[in-house]
């Protein structure tokens, strides 16, 4: 049963990827819609970022002094100025580890 669900979930997921690329003609989307689509990265990724920082494993809001908030702020600052993906990720992780292992330990 679980196997069947995985296959159905996989087909469904594939359709989410394929529909707009293969089945929908670009001309069906108007000019106005195209300019709105410019915002897709900015409109989608914060929905992954925010909950991962501000909501804990139990589904409730973290404290204002949570190490993840601090790590995210460091990553934003480092990323903004360095324009480097590795520096962004590492600075966030290291400052987070510094807080949980050195300061709060």
């Amino acid at each position, binding site marked *: 049963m679980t196997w069947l669900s995985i296959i159905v979930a996989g087909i469904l997921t594939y359709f989410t990827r394929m529909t707009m690329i293969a089945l929908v003609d670009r001309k069906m989307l108007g000019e106005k819609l195209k300019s709105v689509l410019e915002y897709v990265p*900015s*409109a989608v990724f914060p929905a992954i970022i925010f909950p991962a920082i501000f909501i804990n494993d139990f589904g409730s809001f973290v404290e204002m002094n949570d190490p993840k908030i601090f790590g995210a702020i460091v990553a934003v600052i480092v990323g903004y100025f360095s324009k480097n993906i590795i520096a962004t990720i590492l600075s966030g992780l290291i400052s987070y580890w510094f807080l949980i292992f050195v300061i709060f330990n």
Partner: protein
Amino acid sequence: MLTKKQLFTRGILDISPHMLSVIPFGIICGAIGVELGFNPYLVYAMSFIIFGGASQIVFLQLVSGGASSLVAVTSVGIINSRHLLYGAVLSEYLEKLSYIKKLIISYFVVDQSFAESNKFFKKNKTEQYLYYHLIGTGCTLWVCWQISTLSGIILGSFVPEELGLKFAIPLTFIAIVVQDLKKIDHVIVMITCGLSSLLFFDAPFKSYIIISPVIALLVASLILRLKK
């Protein structure tokens, strides 16, 4: 004009830094599946059949928590519905491809490959074989995802949870959007999406992941209207 090989290599290089978070996440994903008591083959098969990290974890957690198949499958579909938006953006650059190529390339459209290839596409609109960049980013992520989830299945709880490696996920996406913080319109759209995601976090089937982008895009269209 870049050759197919150059574009493919460029794709690999552009997405490689993100493996810093994709690989730990894959390991966690594999380990969680085994820890929850699932058949290791089944846990791995998901990486191949679904190929979507967050949705794989949610699926496993729901099924192990006793949710019905319908709920689990619906949740996967809703979490992954954001790909519709990626596809809509990418279709502009892929419209000249043959049908079969479109069908194959679609399988490799994931968050980071979309983000990096879209950035590249915007700057290099005139390249003839642009899609090779997407194949490069997509295949790199695919290979890393397969290997890392497999490692997680084999290593199991070897990776200490205290390390908090899950935190690498939001960091990857921060790296993707951080340069757009220079533009006030993008900042407004991002904050709208982020706050909506917190507000609708408890909406059924994890639907916050598509509700908040829709709200943010509505705000974006308002901004465009005001700009004129």
